[in-house]
């Protein structure tokens, strides 16, 4: 009996392991027990090679990534922040927070800089952890000065290829009257300028059978309602702001497209010639009338990731339409007094509104469209 209990316990333990139950529910990243490969990300917090729940071998770690509420927007933060806690050789930095926050939207968002939040969700001030005086015990944690400079220069160096201190702060008591590169009065309330893009981009790809890919940028933004960050998510500033690069920034990888489009359907994007922009009637056989063309795609195609063709029968969507609730004149035909009270089925057989209506049910000598049950407008 004892053996049985032991076996049962072992079985239960192993299933817990397999199901990954040993991982904390608020663990920063999905971790599957079937794939216990430690990567750089794991190593930011776990010191040993085989961390378990009982021995997670965590080090003091604040690189979990901050949790911002989903409704947090960059406008919610301060407009400008004056960084003056350190000014010794240089004047305080007037940091255009809103401008940088809006830029970060394309490059990792707020957590790019605010890498840590308390359990309460509150984002602590930088100097709560990064002290002004260097920590001689935790040598890996930069002091406030090091943190600021690493954070700023991480991007600034990438695109400017220089380390001009004066770009951000002026030297104290400088005789040369060094002027900061930008006008401080000019940055208040200024978000990142709108980025202009071409209506379409034509790419010559290496796919030999059909090398031309026409990407209708405007369609994706205006018609399909994609946000910039849906595609430009991992962008760094240098992609646009690299002063050494002259060419237009491009998204090279097919993976961006294939996050929505089926990658096995090559012909959808690839062709031997330029493709016209999207036309619902041509592509799907269902021409959008002037009521449907203003409707959001998602109203009919419920799942964006899986664009299921919805039923084209009117009452499948407009389930409340019936005699009395449906104003027939919107289709361009106002029913006369003999017909307006009749059931839909009298003319639309089986309530299938896609096929032509018929008069046969009541009238032997009449037919649509020669004879009409009302007045055509």
């Amino acid at each position, binding site marked *: 009996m004892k053996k049985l209990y032991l076996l049962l316990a072992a079985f239960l333990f192993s299933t817990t392991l397999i199901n990954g139950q040993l991982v904390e529910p608020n663990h920063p990243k999905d971790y599957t027990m079937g794939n216990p490969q430690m990567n750089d990300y794991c190593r930011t917090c776990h010191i040993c090679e085989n961390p378990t729940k009982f021995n997670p071998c965590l080090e003091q770690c604040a690189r979990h990534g901050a949790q911002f509420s989903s409704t947090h927007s960059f406008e919610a933060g301060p407009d400008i922040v004056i960084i003056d806690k350190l000014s010794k050789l240089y004047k305080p930095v007037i940091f255009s927070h809103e401008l940088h926050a809006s830029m970060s939207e394309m490059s990792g968002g707020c957590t790019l800089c605010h890498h840590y939040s308390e359990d309460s969700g509150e984002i602590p001030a930088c100097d709560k952890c990064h002290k002004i005086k260097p920590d*001689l015990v935790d040598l*890996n944690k930069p002091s406030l000065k090091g943190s600021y400079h690493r954070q700023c220069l991480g991007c600034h160096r990438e695109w400017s290829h*220089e380390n001009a201190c004066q770009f951000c702060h002026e030297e104290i008591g400088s005789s040369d009257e060094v002027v900061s590169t930008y006008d401080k009065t000019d940055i208040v309330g200024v978000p990142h300028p709108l980025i202009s893009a071409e209506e379409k981009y034509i790419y010559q790809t290496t796919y030999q059978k059909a090398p031309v890919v026409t990407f209708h940028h405007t369609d994706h933004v205006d018609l399909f309602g994609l946000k910039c960050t849906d595609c430009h998510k991992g962008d760094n500033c240098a992609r646009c702001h690299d002063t050494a690069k002259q060419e237009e920034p491009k998204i090279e990888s097919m993976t961006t497209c294939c996050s929505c489009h089926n990658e096995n359907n090559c012909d959808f994007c690839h062709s031997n010639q330029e493709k016209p922009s999207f036309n619902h009637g041509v592509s799907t056989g269902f021409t959008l009338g002037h009521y449907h063309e203003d409707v959001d795609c998602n109203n009919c195609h419920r799942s964006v990731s899986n664009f299921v063709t919805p039923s084209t029968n009117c009452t499948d969507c407009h389930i409340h339409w019936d005699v009395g609730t449906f104003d027939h004149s919107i289709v361009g035909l106002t029913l006369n007094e003999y017909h307006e009270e009749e059931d839909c089925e009298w003319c639309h057989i089986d309530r299938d509104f896609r096929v032509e209506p018929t008069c046969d049910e009541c009238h032997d000598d009449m037919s649509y469209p020669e004879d009409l049950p009302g007045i055509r407008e």
Partner: protein
Amino acid sequence: MGIERREFLKTLAVASGSLAGVSSLKASNKTELNPDRFGVLSDLTYCIGCRKCEWACNEANELPNQSLDSFSDTSVFENMRRPTSEKYTVVNSFANKGLDGGALNVKVQCMHCEHPPCVSACIVSALRKHPDGPVTYNASACIGCRYCIIACPFQIPTYEYEKALTPQVRKCTLCLERTIENGQLPACVEICPTEAIVFGRRKDLLELAHERIRKHPDKYIDHVYGEYEVGGTSWMYLSNQPFNEIGFPELDDKSPAELTESIQHGIFKGFSGPIMLFGLLGIIMKVMKKEEENE
């Protein structure tokens, strides 16, 4: 046949005895190092080449200096530089070697070796290894032989050739007065905006360096320069490029001082040199005498 068997064995015994004495003797005047001695870790991947360390070093050591702003000039990177008698530290830049394809900047200064060849070469002990790390210089003891300059594997010490009467050997002091005597950071470490250079206990820095390599094996090459080079140095480097490609000499794990010291100090240990010499002379005399008698 001049030498008899017994005489030959005697000679062999004396010779091998004195040889064994040489090899078993170790350098005896080595400084006992403090296990908590200091050092600096320079992570080249963080260095932005702003040269503020050069400015701060000049200020701290009262060397000729220019305005802070003038150090933004990057045209000095066109030539490889070495420390001079008026510059204890210089930054060199290696184009396209950095992490994002930009420049990789290397700060050069005295490495403050654990077992410094310059200290070993100094015949008047003007250069000494401080138990807490720095290699110190006492100008009043220096006789200006400049052996230290030749001995240094990193070509660091320089000489004030322009001063006719009071020339000194010049090199980085690891800001001994600031750090060990006043608990401050070295001037260059204090000013570094990105904290690419970190001052701390040598053993902690080594731990930190290996920790960074372990966490980012794709970023760093698995080599902490100065951990073992010439028996270890107080300044250590982390890089994303092989060190021999960015101006660092490829050196043995043993200090060059170890070999010379073991021979020189060994010879004179326990008066063994003179004993060996006179022993050998005695044997030769005896052999000669016997040969004469035989004739």
